[in-house]
């Protein structure tokens, strides 16, 4: 009897030692159940945050499904941003989504990658009002196009700019100028 009593707290202790890993395992199981295991690749947990890569064909359905899911209530879009990896051929551009369940305090990071020649990603403005400006920002900085967005225009830069400045090929200084170099601006 005594041994049993001792073993139960020990188990609880072991579970309590890494509650984040446990939550992530639950979340991953839910994701696989809802959308199928083949929907996600590169599943990892950098610094305790579950991260998975999916495809742009599925991203809208997945985020819509997570928003409506009653079990985990992953219904808060914390942030989304674009990124550019020029050396990854065929997957140069990416979008990163951070979702959060305020009820269960679980975060999830989803990523999609797509070719720079075809930078088209479904909009999330029909799910989240907050996606509106974030998508405009991603369009402004990276030139990612969101069909269905109500007002896809530049947001932080001037309207008549003809390039997308956060792409890696543009230098830190004004990319259209040739009289200045990057030499003295950081490394």
């Amino acid at each position, binding site marked *: 009897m005594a041994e049993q009593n001792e073993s139960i707290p020990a188990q609880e202790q072991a579970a309590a030692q890494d509650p984040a890993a446990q939550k992530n395992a639950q979340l991953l199981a839910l994701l696989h159940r809802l959308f199928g295991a083949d929907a996600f690749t590169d599943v990892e947990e*950098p*610094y305790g*945050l579950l*991260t998975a890569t999916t495809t742009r064909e599925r991203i809208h359905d997945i985020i819509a499904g997570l928003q409506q899911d009653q079990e985990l209530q992953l*219904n*808060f*879009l*914390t*942030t989304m*941003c674009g*990124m*550019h990896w020029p050396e990854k051929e065929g997957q140069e551009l990416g979008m*990163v989504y*951070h979702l959060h369940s*305020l009820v269960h*305090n679980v*975060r999830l*990071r989803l990523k999609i990658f797509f070719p720079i020649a075809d930078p088209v990603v479904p909009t999330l*403005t*029909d799910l*989240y*009002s*907050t*996606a*509106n*400006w*974030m998508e405009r*920002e991603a369009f402004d*900085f990276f030139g990612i196009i969101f069909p269905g967005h*109500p*007002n896809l225009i*530049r*947001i*932080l*830069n*001037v309207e008549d700019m003809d390039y997308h*400045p*956060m792409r890696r090929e543009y230098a*830190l200084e004004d990319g259209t100028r040739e009289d200045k170099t*990057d030499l003295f*601006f*950081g*490394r």
Partner: protein
Amino acid sequence: MAVNDTLEGTHKIIEEAREQQPRINPLAPTVNDFNQELTTLNLGPTHPATHGIFQNILQMDGERIISGVPTIGYIHRAFEKIAERRPFYQITPLTDRMNYCSSPINNMGWHMTVEKLLGVEVPKRAQYMRVILMELARITDHLICNGILGVDTGAFTGFLYLMDEREKVYEIYEEVSGARLTTNMGRVGGMERDFTPVALQKLRTWLKTFPAVMQEFEKMFNRNRIFMDRVVDVGGISAERALNYGFTGPNLRAAGVDYDVRVMNPYSSYQDFDFEIPVGTKGDTYDRFMVRNEEIWQSLRIINQALENLPEGPYHADAPHYYLPPKQAVYKNMEALIYHFKIVMGEIEAPVGEVYHSVEGGNGELGFYLVSDGGRTPYRLHFRRPCFIYYQAYTEMVVGQTLSDAIVTLSSMNVIAGELDA
């Protein structure tokens, strides 16, 4: 539907708003009486009531707003791009200049992100010192917001009372770090220096004198008839819409959702302190004002607890590869000189990885998404700026209200242009 920044979308919203909300004067002429003669009004970009540089092109029907298009980006400084070319220490000054009303929070948030990436453990004393400084920053942020809300409703006195207190907090910052506004006071691994006796003395004196001023300010506003007429039921947003818009911080709590990063994902020893999360019910301007007032009291509670239990010990981690050595050691000690040189020249190599770390900023969840490819600079750094997230709801919040309501709504949302544009 998130179509509020197109004119068609806002027309739809106004129709709904009109049906729900009775006009102040039912005899006043309506749109139809004037054959829909509307006025276009540019509120901003430079107007004292916009609290920064951004423009709202409002369509007005008499005194009522029927639609609006916000334009931002006037002080966009490309911080995310600049950060890609800078070593971690050189990014600190950039974070200072985002929400300049509470720059220590931005600082600490950034350093905590880097510490998470590098795996640096910060000693308890430094964590408590950070908590004290972050809560001071939160108080000054709220003081500015609520003080100026008073000015926007025509009450200048409260602003003067609170600005005086903010100056005193800035003097504490000055004792701690040498700077007042853009403090740059944290370091990777802890604090730049310990609290001096003078700083602690100033802090203790301020903690004794400030509550009386705050009480007086609250007496002046909280149940003031004129003030309440201007702010109650003005610029409200429901909890559901606020969540859909990604609101965090006092603006979300005013709508009734008790989400606070300090409680949900504690950082820097916040779990050690006893404090409450004030929430509102309606999410209107009055609720936002009251939530901020109450948060000031809660922050004072936290500072008092942290000061009382301030642990002895080192104020920075023993991490010579990342923590800048003291200047005196640099003059005398070869190793310190080498580390100083390597850190200043940006020779720190970070591990490959990606980190998302968020702190409770003055006006919401301030997040840092940092992607490192193993180089000396971040490969990609994205700031989740709370102002940027919730300013897009502004149009929806003011449509159907009067121009004077739009002014107080904007100031109660605490939109800081530096953070909005980054």
